């Protein structure tokens, strides 16, 4: 009976009892959700364009952030460092296409997947080689991002809004929407889906895989840089940051690998779900459930919709 109460009643009593805190939980869920969506977006872009799950996205986040901070530490002004980092991500996109993808046209997905793993190994080594393994702090205020927080009185308590979180939501929102628009409205968007379906046929109608891949990898690089700045501001910039990419996986799957809106919705569902569950129910299981909770949500959704919420239909024909 007690257990039933703990599971089905107590959390709600708590929610009602501390409405300010509940709002705070929702806000945190919203912020993390948007940030998850941002990482997931990086994956989606590349998946859309090649049908490949880009394992290196996590490392690209670290790499981009390290480049930014590294350049700044080397004396480059913050904004110039930002521009130069974008350039580095562009160069990365071109090299990846030249040296890797180009030679793997028409190979099974898993082979391309493996190649991105090879790439992430390379980037780890290369990144540490250049920037060293030391932990660095993100140059948040130098980039003109707000710090500090606002405390709002609410229902007899307080809700705290970090300015950097607000900025993160805004920036992520802008990035996500503009990329979504770019890829859904332009003919490039259609070409991406064509490439993901069938490399050879795409070639045969004159879609230049090389160009498309450079574009999406660069877009993914931009997203990685944004992700790196945002997450870097929340903790620090080190190779541990790549782990956050793992958090994006369930988001990605929940939303559907191919859908930009899916990444957003998936991110929010998991952001909210995870926070609420961990805060109100996690204690019952000894805490630390966040590690797998997102995956379980994703799994449950998948059982009902094997292609994720907004993913492309899985065509089964004979």
């Amino acid at each position, binding site marked *: 009976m007690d257990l039933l109460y703990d599971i089905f009643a107590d959390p709600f009593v708590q929610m009602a009892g501390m409405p300010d805190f509940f709002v705070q939980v929702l806000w945190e869920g919203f912020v993390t959700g948007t940030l998850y969506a941002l990482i997931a977006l990086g994956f989606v872009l590349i998946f859309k364009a090649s049908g490949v799950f880009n394992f290196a996205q996590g490392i690209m986040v670290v790499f981009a952030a390290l480049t930014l901070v590294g350049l700044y530490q080397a004396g480059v002004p913050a904004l110039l460092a930002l521009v130069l980092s974008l350039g580095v991500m562009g160069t990365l996109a071109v090299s990846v296409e030249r040296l890797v993808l180009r030679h793997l046209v028409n190979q099974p997905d*898993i082979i391309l997947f493996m*190649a991105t793993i090879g790439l992430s190994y390379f980037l780890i080594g290369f990144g540490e080689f250049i920037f060293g393994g030391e932990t660095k702090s993100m140059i948040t205020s130098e980039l003109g991002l707000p710090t500090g927080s606002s405390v709002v009185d609410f229902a007899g308590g307080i809700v705290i809004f970090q300015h950097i979180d607000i900025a993160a939501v805004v920036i992520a929102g802008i990035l996500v929407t503009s990329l979504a628009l770019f890829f859904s409205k332009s003919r490039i968007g259609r070409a991406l889906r064509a490439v993901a379906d069938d490399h050879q046929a795409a070639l045969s109608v004159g879609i230049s895989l090389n160009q498309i891949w450079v574009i999406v990898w660069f877009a993914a690089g931009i997203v990685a840089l944004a992700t790196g700045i945002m997450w870097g501001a929340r903790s620090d910039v080190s190779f541990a940051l790549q782990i956050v990419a793992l958090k994006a*996986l369930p988001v990605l799957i929940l939303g559907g690998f191919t859908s930009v809106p899916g990444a957003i919705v998936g991110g929010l569902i998991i952001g909210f779900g995870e926070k609420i569950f961990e805060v109100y129910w996690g204690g019952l299981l000894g805490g630390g459930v966040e590690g*797998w909770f997102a995956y379980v949500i994703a799994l449950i959704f998948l059982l009902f919709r094997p292609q994720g919420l907004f993913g492309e239909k899985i065509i089964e024909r*004979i």
Partner: protein
Amino acid sequence: MIYRETGQFKTNYKADNSIFPILQDRIAIIFYLFVAFIVIPAFGSDFFINSMMIPFLIFALAAIGLNILTGFTGQISLGTGAFMGVGAYSCYKLVTIFPDTNVIFLIVISGFFSAAIGMVFGLPSLRIKGFYLVVTTLAAQFFLEWCFIRIEWLYNYNTSGAIEVPRREVFNVIVTGPEAAAVTQYLVVLSIVVAMTWIASNLIHGRIGRSWMMIRDMDIAAELMGVRPLYAKLSAFAVSSFYAGVAGAMMVFMWLGAAEVESFDVNHSFLILFMVIIGGLGSIKGSFLGAAFIWMLPVVLRAFPKALGLDVPVATVEHVNFMIIGGLIIFFLIIEPNGLARIWALLKQKLRVWPFPY
């Protein structure tokens, strides 16, 4: 023209059906076994046996397991690390509950526990496919990792949360624990790996292996040919996890000696997946080649600058190592996406037509 099958006609199905139809291959196998069972124990240094051969064999076994699932049945899994963990923890429990039972037997038995868990997490594969399936296996990975921490019973309420291998003897020879001789452990691992490789190869060359491959290549057509997807997929999950479980148990009992959750984390799953893909999906030989490549290459690379007398900081060596391995992975995929096993086969094919180019 060393490698020639000319003149080796197969006069019956039995000969044609045997796993090594060509005489040279049979000789090669006998040669490998000879080296593995006689030469290495006799001449290998402790470091070579402990840090190269034993882990290589254990990883090869795990890779065979994953290969059964991913390479032969087409179900990508990132849960191998956790399934190895299930094997390791069940073996630990078994060994402490039945201290007098032959530990080698218990290692093999612990495979059944991970097989059972593997089947449970294999259930969603009936509906979920491709990269989407990765999520279920990752769910397994993270959920099990969490269990390894939260369920204290699994590690006998040890405050450090780790499992430590007790000393056990089989026929008065110390097999596990720190006093066990490297060679003894090596021979045990080798025997288990050889036996299980043989079994895997039998399964793969028979009806069951074929039904796995049918599911992999085209599951709809397979069902129309009368393969029950439920049975085929779950059996692949079970066998695969069994292999992973035994490998995990050996990893702790025959190699590391102690383990925490980290020994079974997702990086492990990735490591094994690399081995499978680099070695060659759907090739048992590839599992060995992949394991050798991924495990031994870094060890060799690390020793390299020292052997050359170069004084390079270790960190730099490690960075360059990462770059080289990443680069090599990509390089091999480009020259042959089907893995080292295919490169091997191509070499043989070239030998066959040698000295002509084709």
